[in-house]
């Protein structure tokens, strides 16, 4: 197949989390900076929360990527729900201690005092809403003992305000909330993604009106925006191949944006 003008932009918006694709957005950068300083504070545990698709995993992976140059950092992006398994995997990952049996908390803490790191190792836990309260308590004890430092991410859903949940109320938590992008931020997000990948011609097609519509449809949610842009450029790639005369190159077509929104379910039709 002919390489399409739109296939590259389309692939930019696949929903994957790769720190190399991290796009710097002002408000997110502020949070990222405060996250990096918080990480240096002893004892505090850090909570990154926000609605689905606001970039929590992305920020966590970026943190992992940047910090691992200087210190021991370990990422657990798929939650280990089994309590015994959790300590075993942690010991393996952080202290390279291989064990077939389950570890008790006491044994784990003994291990950690036996191994000396110049700075406290950092453990990043994604999707922590899946951990049980008992396991969260263990995590807190490990943090209290200064064995490890934790940064965790949590979904914020409509029906339960996680922050109100008991074990996150204590003062040991430092919370950072991620939000959907504003209109301006979404514009920067989309444009930067395209420009970074040298898709200048497509970047030139996007005007204020297009961004307004996209941001209205996706409410600035990064994941929804990715999905919409992916569908949109798939549409464009299709028209380019089958009906090129329909494409206007001076701006994105409102009709196609709406069609993409229908396809992804943002518009109910």
């Amino acid at each position, binding site marked *: 197949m002919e390489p399409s003008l739109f296939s590259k932009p389309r692939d930019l918006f696949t929903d994957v989390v790769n720190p190399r694709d991290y796009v710097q957005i002002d408000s997110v950068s502020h949070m990222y900076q405060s996250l990096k300083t918080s990480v240096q504070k002893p004892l505090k545990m850090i909570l990154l929360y926000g609605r689905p698709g606001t970039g929590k995993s992305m920020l966590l992976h970026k943190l992992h990527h940047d910090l691992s140059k200087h210190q021991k950092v370990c990422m657990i992006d798929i939650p280990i729900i089994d309590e015994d398994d959790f300590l075993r995997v942690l010991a393996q990952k952080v202290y390279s201690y291989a064990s077939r049996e389950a570890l008790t908390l006491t044994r784990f803490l003994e291990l950690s005092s036996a191994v000396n790191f110049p700075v406290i190792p950092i453990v990043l836990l994604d999707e922590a809403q899946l951990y049980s309260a008992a396991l969260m308590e263990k995590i807190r004890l490990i943090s209290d003992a200064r064995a490890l430092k934790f940064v965790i991410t949590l979904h914020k859903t409509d029906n339960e305000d996680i922050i109100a949940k008991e074990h996150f109320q204590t003062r040991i938590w430092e919370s950072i909330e991620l939000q959907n992008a504003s209109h301006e931020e979404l514009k*920067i997000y989309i444009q930067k993604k395209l420009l970074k990948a040298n898709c200048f011609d497509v970047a030139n097609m996007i005007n204020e009106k297009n961004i307004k519509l996209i941001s209205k449809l996706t409410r600035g949610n990064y994941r929804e925006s990715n999905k919409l842009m992916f569908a949109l450029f798939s549409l464009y790639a299709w028209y380019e191949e089958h009906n090129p005369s329909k494409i206007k190159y001076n701006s994105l077509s409102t009709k196609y944006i709406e069609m993409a929104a*229908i396809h992804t379910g943002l518009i109910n039709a």
Partner: protein
Amino acid sequence: MLDISKLEHRWLKYKIKSILPYAAILAVIIISIITFSFLMFNKTTTIPMVTSKKEDLKVKTPVPVPSINDENSMLLEPSMQFLQSMSGSTPLVESVPTTPVPVVPIKRSLPLAQVQAQTDTVPPIVKPPQVPVVKGKLTSIKRDDAAFDIHELEERFKNNSNPNLGLYIARYHYDHANYTESYNYALKTNGINATMDESWLIFAKSLVKLGKEDQAKKTLQLYISNSNSQNAKNYLNTLTKEYSK
């Protein structure tokens, strides 16, 4: 994968559905106009002030769907007194046109209550797109453009001379009212690829902003003689009209 024809079909249905409320409003307005002119033609008596009191009441508690009778009595207002009282409240009426209802010619003469009732019948989906969807945190986004590193792009343009990037930068500067810069970058872009309509337009528009309309016109004429571009012709026409006044 995408089923384009089905998607186009669904889009059409969606479009019709979203246009329907406007069509309904338009129909109501047309009917009111017809009734109005009909009654104007038949009656020549003026209306007692009692009705305008009724209006005041209505303004405070807008009724979602105006009944035909109410409208008629409201519309029967040929007295000068009424018109004067209306002109006092023009700003309110003027603030309404954000509703994308194509009724411009009669808007001024529409009684307040009716205008309000009209806006009330508009369902939430058809709210004008200008309504910002941004949630909170407005203060933190005002300098966001600073996060956009145009200098980095300019460096890249120096190295790769990609005309699309040149155009992008020119547009960026034009949008930020840096007309000398947009002029420069459009010029460079035209030097690399002389067939890009938009780059020529930005070049000409920058010249206009810099107060050099004549040069802008000459440039456009030159470009049109080479490219026969319709966009350029249109812009040249507007320019000629604007600056011959």
